[in-house]
């Protein structure tokens, strides 16, 4: 699939994506509410991005990247391929060397920090937990961008936090301190915090890390619900390609800091991609819920 590069990219980036998407959605389940969307979902777009860290060179280069409004876009790629770096740049945590990131057409760097945080939430790949903070208090921190300097908690904050705890499935852990949780429980607490932030766009870097199967599915179901029922725009990094294929509307495969391919999962996920990008020999079957990847062995 490596020959499908420059021209394909051209074709896909010049605005043709939306129509393409509409077609795609047909062969994806969970779309029942899709048509009820209010149409106000936000779109995140990056153009001509060159991203690096202070002491490193350019690590990610990307002519055009779109996280379409109201959909789930999964970023996949091997370790070190630049997924986190890309997400950091999209969420303004990292200032790209060149290029712009636009949220609904506005440069994210021109937005106020709080304004942006009300619109875009980021779950980092690794989070350091202050040991003696309770899960509930952590979730309340997610409400920070919604409160004015002198305001105290409102009923709205309260509701948002309750809902986030519920969605992340940590209601029963609300009074536990982060330090006395298992790795997976802690991860769920962080997810609750981002959900409480109640943004239009969510960027989740490996949210299923540390989670057991059930919680992985739960989190992904929640993500799906949010996108399709509440019109959230979601970017998500996943290592499990089957899961990515099953839940995402679009898939972006990164290799060595560059997008290798993107499009609907059914198109992108092929044995060739797995060999080329991931270096894995695998069979790709079609299950009831999209492509199913059965890995054989590393190449």
């Amino acid at each position, binding site marked *: 699939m490596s020959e499908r590069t420059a021209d394909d990219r051209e074709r896909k980036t010049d605005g043709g994506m939306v129509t393409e998407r509409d077609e795609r959605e047909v062969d994806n389940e969970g779309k029942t509410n899709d048509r009820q969307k209010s149409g106000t979902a936000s779109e995140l777009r990056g153009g001509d991005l060159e991203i690096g860290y202070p002491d490193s060179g350019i690590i990610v280069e990307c002519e055009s990247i779109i996280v379409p409004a109201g959909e789930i876009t999964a970023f996949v790629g091997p370790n070190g391929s630049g997924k986190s770096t890309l997400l950091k740049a999209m*969420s303004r*945590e990292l200032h790209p060397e060149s290029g712009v990131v636009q949220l609904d057409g506005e440069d994210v760097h021109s937005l*106020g*920090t*709080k*304004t*942006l*945080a*009300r619109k875009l*939430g*980021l779950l*980092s790949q690794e*989070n*350091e937990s*202050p*040991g*003696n*903070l309770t899960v509930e*208090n*952590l979730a309340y*921190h*997610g409400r*920070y*961008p919604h*409160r004015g*300097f*002198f305001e*105290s*908690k*409102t*009923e709205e904050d*309260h509701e948002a936090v309750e809902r986030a705890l519920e969605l992340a499935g940590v209601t029963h852990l609300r009074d536990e301190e982060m330090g006395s949780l298992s790795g997976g429980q802690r991860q769920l607490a962080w997810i609750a915090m981002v959900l409480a*932030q109640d943004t239009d766009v969510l960027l989740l870097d490996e949210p299923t890390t540390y989670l057991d199967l059930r919680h992985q599915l739960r989190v992904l179901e929640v993500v799906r619900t949010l996108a399709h029922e509440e019109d959230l725009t979601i970017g998500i990094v996943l290592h499990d390609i089957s899961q990515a294929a099953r839940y995402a509307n679009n898939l972006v495969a990164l290799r060595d800091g560059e997008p290798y391919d993107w499009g609907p999962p059914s198109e992108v996920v092929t044995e060739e991609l797995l060999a080329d990008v991931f270096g894995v020999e695998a069979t790709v079957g079609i299950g009831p819920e999209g492509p199913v990847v059965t890995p054989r062995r590393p190449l």
Partner: protein
Amino acid sequence: MSENFEKEINKTFDGALTALVVASIAIVVIGGLVQVSFGAFTMSLEQAWRAVFDPKVITNPDVLLALLLGNEIPVDLSSETTVVWSLRLPRVLVGILVGANLAISGAIFQAVTRNELASPYILGVSHGAGFAVLLTLIVFSGLSVFLPIFAALGGIVAFIIVYAIAWKGGTSPVRLVLAGFIVGTIFYSFQRGLFFFAPDIGVVQTALAWTTGSLTGTGWEQVRTVLIPTLFIVPVSLVVSRQLNLLLLGERTARSLGMSVERVRFMLSALAILAASAAISVAGIVSFVGLIVPHIVRNIVGTDYRKLVLGCLFAGPALVVGADVGARLALNPIQVPVGIVTGLVGGPYFLYLMRKRQKLGEL
């Protein structure tokens, strides 16, 4: 919304915080009573209390105002009344204000630097102030009336230097702490160097007293000096407790939640410096209060800064007023600087807590 507010209040004032506040108030009240009743000037308890309720003062707003504003007192007061009203009472008030400022300042710095050793003096403030004091005493001795102001200025200048050095397209707690420490030590070296130019031991001892912190000789003038900034600091510190909580989550998270970390950190530091300077300007460098009060309060009410700041507002005065009773009366008639007593009382108590509790010291 008002029901919600009530819930909020109830949640903040949980059992632990309420107990702490009540205990602190009790200590301040008892300490105040003792301070008013005893001292170098011999009078009976009855005389002391008659002086407190001297109708010439309490029924006469003019006298009260004159005391507070430092004007000429319009009536002739007895020695007892003078001693109580212009020496003993204001000293208690200064103690309360100093304690509150130092404790708040320490609590803020512990969040800003995320360092458990942070105190109001962490960013070079104390040594900057100490240096200014010595400079005033030794080089500009004609200006020693302005000592308090210079002291506070010295602290602020040190803080600005620290920030300028730590800033490198942004700061970090580690850089701030380190720059603060080094700038502090340099000022300290200068200070030690100035010692060598002190005309006599008295100046050295005055400087030492300043750098140890003392409430001796404080009066209404000091109450005025520290009251004005305090009226600003206290409400603001209560409001910013949410920012403090968020800072503890780490920079990255705080930023992704929409906090302008650098700006907030600078503003909070400035607030804390203001509080420290207010305290320094009237009491010198009272050690320890700003370091241990937040830890002790945290150990009782937990790490939530909404409770912590409130607790510090009460516990700080309790420690200072309590210690000042010791400073003034323990070796009566010899007075020792209150800074020594806060160290000797607060320190061992803190160590005792540390022996008892595993988690003490974590932020």
